[in-house]
Structure formats: structure tokens, C-alpha cells
């Protein structure tokens, strides 16, 4: 329980620091605060996708349903964080550029990850037997594993060239004040711990469901 208490204080503390201690990014003004949550959420989305894909490939090799539980749980949590990242990104874009959505390369990439999560979970919901569902979902992860690099690095660039209407303020790498950088990474760590905690809970639930489903069947 100490670890959880630490996590509670860690994230709470850095939220306070984000508002009181760290200065604002010159151009972004108050909207900097959103980035403290938007970017860690996006990071966890990618982390969860990687975690899910690794466990999917492990399932194909070892055929141990434990890997499938991990992959499915990571996908569900990843989808949650992806929605948070997308919404917070849109809010931030509205504040910065006056439009919720304008297919900015980063927005496009996050949205595509949302599509992959949705497709993976839709596929899982359409298969009943646990072994077959695990196997086919893992095969789909394998395909998505190949598509992700193209979706994140290539398609946004192409799309960017298709609609090169000038952006008012491209969100390039802003030279961050050291204090901002500290708060930013601290929250990144905090979110990652949060992910692993919720992931472990979801996996334990999946184990109980699998066992319970067994005794019912």
C-alpha cells in the first residue's frame, strides 16, 4: 500500500508544481498546463500499444493465455488513455488555433492509434472461444505492428503535403525552461506508474473472469 500512497503524493505534488512552480511557455501561455497531461497520456497510449503487441507476439509463441490477458488489458487501458490524449489535444488545439481538429500530423497519428485500438477490441468482441480469440487477436496485433510505423511516421507527413495550408503556430520543439522539463518528466513517470497499476488490476480481473467462465461452462 506504500507504493500506492507514494503514487498518490507523487502525482498530486507534481500537479501543484505544474501550476505554482513551473513558469508558462512564452508563446503557449496558460495552455501549457494542458500539455502536462496531454503528452503523458499520449505517451501511455503508445506504451500500452507496445505492451499489447509484445504480449500478443509472446502469446503466438508460447500459447499461454496469461499473455492474452496482458495484451487485452493493455489495449483497453491504451484506448482510454488514447481518448484522453485525443480530447486534451483537441482542447489545446482549439485554444491555440481556434479549431478542435485540423489533421495536424500529431493529431492524425494519435487518431490512427485510436482506430487500431478500436479495431482490435472490435475483433476480440466478435470471437467467443478464448483460445481462438487470443490467437486471432494476436495475429491482428502482428499486422498492426507493421502498420503502426507507417501510420505514425509516413501517413501524417503525406497528409501534411496533401493539405499544406499554413499552420498558425506549428507545435515544434519549444526550448523548455528546465523547471517545465522537470515537471513534465515527473508527470510522465507518474502516468506510467498509473498505467502499470491499472493494468495489473485489469489483468487480475481477466484471470478471475476466465476461471469463473470455466466453472460456468
Amino acid at each position: 500500500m506504500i507504493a500506492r500512497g507514494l503514487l498518490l503524493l507523487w502525482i498530486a505534488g507534481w500537479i501543484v508544481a505544474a501550476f505554482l512552480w513551473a513558469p508558462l511557455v512564452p508563446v503557449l501561455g496558460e495552455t501549457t498546463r494542458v500539455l502536462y497531461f496531454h503528452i503523458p497520456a499520449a505517451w501511455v497510449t503508445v506504451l500500452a500499444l507496445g505492451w499489447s503487441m509484445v504480449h500478443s507476439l509472446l502469446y503466438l509463441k508460447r500459447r499461454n493465455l496469461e499473455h492474452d490477458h496482458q495484451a487485452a488489458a493493455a489495449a483497453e487501458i491504451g484506448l482510454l488513455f488514447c481518448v484522453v490524449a485525443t480530447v486534451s489535444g483537441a482542447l489545446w488545439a482549439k485554444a491555440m488555433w481556434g479549431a478542435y481538429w485540423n489533421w495536424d500530423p500529431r493529431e492524425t497519428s494519435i487518431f490512427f492509434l485510436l482506430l487500431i485500438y478500436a479495431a482490435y477490441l472490435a475483433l476480440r468482441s466478435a470471437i467467443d472461444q478464448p483460445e481462438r480469440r487470443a490467437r486471432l487477436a494476436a495475429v491482428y496485433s502482428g499486422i498492426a505492428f507493421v502498420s503502426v510505423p507507417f501510420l505514425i511516421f509516413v501517413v501524417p507527413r503525406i497528409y501534411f503535403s496533401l493539405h499544406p495550408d499554413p499552420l498558425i503556430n506549428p507545435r515544434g520543439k519549444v526550448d523548455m525552461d528546465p523547471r517545465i522539463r522537470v515537471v513534465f518528466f515527473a508527470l510522465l513517470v507518474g502516468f506510467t506508474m498509473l498505467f502499470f497499476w491499472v493494468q495489473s488490476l485489469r489483468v487480475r480481473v481477466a484471470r478471475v473472469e476466465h476461471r469463473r467462465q470455466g466453472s460456468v461452462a
Partner: protein
Amino acid sequence: MSAALGDEGVTVEARALTHRYGHRAVFERLSFSFRGPGIVAVRGPNGSGKSTLLRLLAGLLRPSSGESALTAGGRTIPPRERHRWIGYAAPDLAFYPELTALENLSFAAEARGLSSPAKRGRERLRKVGLEGRENERADALSSGMAQRLRLAFALLDDPPLLLLDEPGSHLDDEGRRSLASWIGDEGSRRLVMIATNDEREGALAGQRVELGSRGVGDPA
């Protein structure tokens, strides 16, 4: 591969073979070893895993645990290649409805890389009493004729191991009689495993695998 087994013969083995559907174990730690040629009956009440066992041996299904091994021509055959070394016929084996009986067989022969597929297909059709039905579409065949087509398919490339799941189903009396004699002489040339509860077919077998309702097999 010559029609007969060649000198090394064929052995099929199960080593602590277990298969579960969800949590229900169909059979657990099933072990046996049979050397061909010969006939083995796989017997047991409904749901005791007769069909599952044959599907596992055919390489169509991956066991929950344990393994099955097939050695033929002095070589152990990995599960991935096993489909080329066995003949399999089961009630759920369906053919392409829009293709004729002969087209189905010659496709199968060609896909397996056998020489002169059409001639081979015609021969097997004659062997199971389907001559004259070559150009009939698979969906137009009666259930008895479809069963004969399955047996023809199983024999397509003279496999060392024949796996027949309820081979006598849907057959008329004449069909059953010719099936019995046919299994008899095939049994002298290859290893034939028949999953059946039909006394007459069971009687043909020299050896048995008894899949009890408890799911534990003990060769007779």
C-alpha cells in the same frame, strides 16, 4: 512413396496427449503407440473425444498439452507437414459444392503435388464405387455418395496412416459390406485408425484405444 509402407513401416504415438475445450478436458494424458500395418479402433461414448483425437493426429488441431508423433519412411513427421502423410475422412469434411466430384479430387491431388491428378481421382472414385458420378456436382451427391467421396479423398495418395471418423455413416448395406472388405485389405498395407461405435467396424480392428467417459485411454 510406394503404395505399401516400405520396410520401415509407420508408427503413430501419443505422449500424454491432453485436449480441453475451455475447461472441459476431453481426454487427459492419453498415451499409446501403434505400428502399421494394422487396424486400430478408437472407441468410446459420445463426447469422449474420438473425433478430437483423430483431428489431433491429422495435424488439424493443436493439443492443449502433450504431443503426438508420426514416423513414416524412417523419419518423424513434424505436425506442420503431417497432412501430406495421412488420409483423413470425417463427417464434417465438406467438398466444394460448385465443383464436381472429380474436380474436387483432382484439385486435392494437384494441391498435394501428386502426378496425373485426374487419372488418380478417377481411379479412387472407381475404388469407392462412384464411377459414372465423376461429373456430378458435389452438392448434388447424396449423403451416402458424399461419404464415399470422403473415403476416396482419404485414399488419394496412398498415405501410410489412414484416419477414418465413422467411415460407415450414411452408407447403404452394399456400401458397408464393401467398406468392411476394403478396410480389411487396406489394413494389411497401411495403419488404419477408425473412430466408431459400430460393432461391425470395431470388430475389424486388431487393436483398440478405449476412450472412457473419464477420458483416460487404455489401449486394449
